[in-house]
């Protein structure tokens, strides 16, 4: 496991870049390389235990310790520097004890770069009919075996400690942004309390970074209150949560910009669940550094290839005799070798079709986030 990053400022190089350790012992350092004079966009180098990451960064999601048919070598060749694992799923199968024995999730899946794990809490929103939230934690009925499980902040952190991810997310009380009323405020306050419990439960603060997640739904007052509280805690980074669940775009952007306005400049901002390329560019302009979404890999499995002008549904008949690559300007391995027609036909008979499109979609997302170059 990589050593913690020294928390000193003497690595400053010139007046343009500012290096600051984000907290006294955290294994994370953010160096702002450039800032856009017009928008709030910034390009940074985020140094984490396994390697440095250029931001803005798009993080592919490898839910169960694998990225949907792609080998770790292929992922490295696509210049992916950080990807996601899902605490809930991995906590169920194969379980934290086994992963700890295998030298953490890095050792289990043989990924040598960075990993970010979520708390397991998002399943609360997506599987909401199965859960009950109390002050103690979230009760699920497992879809695998029907058993009741209680996920507490302590347990979420314990699992993530076993997984050994470079960045861990706090367990937050998530409500869909379409929910209104007192539940939103209750969830916001509870998330703050759970943040403190997560901080206390982290066994490896020298190797694993715990991020807070700003809640508050679409209510500016609540969000501001949450920001005020959470920024008092000494965490290495912040996520903007509770969005991308189906809200109106205008409301969405307002909450994002409000959040980045009140988050410390020298700590990374992770906007959770944003995956459409258009949103990505806007959110970078609003000051966000990190993004994730299952969309590119999930949509690949349905035959949908992402392109600058939208997406191609390669299963459609019109592609049966279309011999261009997905995107003639794209340099990914799929576009360099294969045509839409080939992928269209392959889709009917073999899983390799999904792999080809997944590779293209990830490459597309990673390249899009090479907005770094343009800032």
């Amino acid at each position, binding site marked *: 496991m990589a050593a913690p990053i020294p928390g000193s400022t003497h690595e400053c190089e010139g007046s343009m870049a500012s290096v600051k350790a984000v907290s006294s012992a955290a294994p994370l350092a953010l160096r702002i390389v450039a800032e856009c004079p017009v928008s709030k966009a910034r390009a940074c180098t985020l140094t984490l235990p396994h390697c440095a990451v250029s931001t803005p960064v798009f993080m592919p999601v490898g839910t*169960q310790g*694998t990225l949907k048919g792609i080998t770790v070598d*292929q992922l490295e060749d696509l210049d992916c520097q950080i990807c996601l694992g899902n605490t809930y799923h991995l906590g169920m199968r*194969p379980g934290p004890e086994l992963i700890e024995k*295998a030298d953490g999730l890095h050792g289990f899946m043989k990924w040598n770069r960075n990993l970010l794990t979520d708390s397991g809490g998002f399943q609360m929103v997506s599987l909401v009919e199965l859960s009950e939230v109390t002050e103690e934690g979230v009760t699920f009925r497992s879809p695998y075996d029907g058993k009741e499980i209680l996920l507490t902040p302590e347990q979420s952190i314990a699992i993530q400690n076993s997984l050994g991810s470079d960045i861990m997310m706090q367990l937050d009380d998530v409500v869909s942004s379409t929910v209104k009323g007192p539940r939103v405020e209750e969830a916001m306050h509870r998330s703050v309390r759970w943040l403190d419990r997560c901080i206390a439960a982290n066994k490896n603060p020298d190797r694993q970074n715990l991020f807070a997640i700003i809640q508050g739904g679409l209510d500016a007052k609540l969000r501001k209150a949450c920001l005020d509280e959470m920024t008092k805690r000494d965490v290495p980074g912040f996520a903007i949560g509770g969005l991308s669940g189906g809200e109106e775009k205008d409301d969405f952007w307002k909450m994002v910009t409000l959040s980045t306005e009140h988050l410390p400049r020298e700590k990374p901002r992770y906007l959770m669940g944003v995956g459409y390329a258009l949103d990505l560019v806007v959110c970078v302009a609003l000051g966000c550094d990190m993004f994730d979404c299952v969309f590119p890999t999930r949509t690949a499995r349905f035959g949908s290839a992402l392109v600058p002008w939208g997406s191609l549904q390669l299963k459609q008949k019109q592609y049966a005799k279309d011999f261009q690559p997905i995107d003639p300007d794209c340099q990914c*391995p799929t576009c360099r*070798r294969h045509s839409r027609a*080939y992928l269209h036909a392959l889709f009917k008979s073999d*899983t390799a079709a999904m792999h080809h499109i997944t590779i293209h979609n990830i490459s597309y997302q990673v390249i899009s986030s090479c907005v770094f170059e343009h800032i």
Partner: protein
Amino acid sequence: MRLELSRAVQGCRLGLLTGLGNTGQHSLEVPGCLLYTCCATVPHLTQDTLHTLRDLPSVTQVSVDMYFAVHHMLMVSYAGLHDTVLFCSLHDSANSIPAGHVTNKTVSVWGSGGRIELTAARFMAIQAAIQPDFYQSMADGETWQAGTSRKRVRKAVDRTLAHLDECLVLHQKTQELKQSEIFGVVEGGDILEERLRSARETAKRPVGGFVLDGFHSAAMDQDVRVQLIKATSAELPQEKPRLVLGVGRPDEVISCVEAGVDLFESFFPFQVTERGCALSFNYNIDPDPETAGTSTPTVLEFNGEMPAVKKLNSNGDENMTPYEMNLKDKRYHDDFRPLVEGCSCYCCKKHMRSYVHHLLVTNELLGGVLLMLHNMAHYLGFFKSLREAITSDRLQDFKNRVLHCREGD
């Protein structure tokens, strides 16, 4: 195309199939296997993952039904195959063909839209589009069902010869097939006289080689197969290659090689992959310096654990052979060893049984990718060792090693 035989040992032919490809610069060692593809791609694999495999066969196999999935000649080059040597078979041996759709003038294949009936003319038009380096002639192979009547077997032989003659005429007339070779197909079910008749008649025609049909695993007993292939082989010219369809298990491969077969398909590793299993049988006969001089290894030393056949796995697939391990079995949950110790495939160099087990249990696509890589590598290694054993006169040691995990050996 030329078959250069370097030796024949105990019935096994060893040599090199040369002069393959556009410029004739490719060759294939014999006995050997072709690279199995489904829709012109090796299942589960993209170019990057495929090329982690070393010593890939220089000849790729495609089948006529694939043409109806991708329906354009350019498909071949877009699939990345343009630089390879192609053999085209009629069917895909990994899929079972519904019976009852053969007539005097036609055979049927199944594409994405359903059944397609082929006359010899249509069959040859497809060959002209695919432009394989060699291909099997159109054939009636529907003799594999139990209790096929003598009359039906005879008809299969007759039809197949008639199709061959028609295909030969069309082949001569087709500009696009000038560089291609047509292989005659030997039929005859499990009836010796018909097999001999088919072989003798087919051998009279100007074909580049022979495809032995109707011998696949479900069709007949090992012993019957071996007898019939031996007899058939004796009727065929020595200098022309023989390819058998539908045979893939290591024990069946070995006995077919001893009976005079040169080439095999490689659908077997794919089938093993599809049932979540990994080939694990030992084919290495080089003495381990630490045990040289001691008695031959016992069954218990097989890859360090009991062979799968001796235990009843709850997840066992009924098609599972003694040559593989079932990675879905719970015992691999915390097994941190590679699939096969000493295997140099990507999966074994990078990953462990526990991880592959997890991928299979969670239905993750990467499971298929990794297993396919391992199974292909293992299978190719088996063929390489087989050739080395024949070369160095150690075939019996090789057979002992590969076959000893079977009951009663």
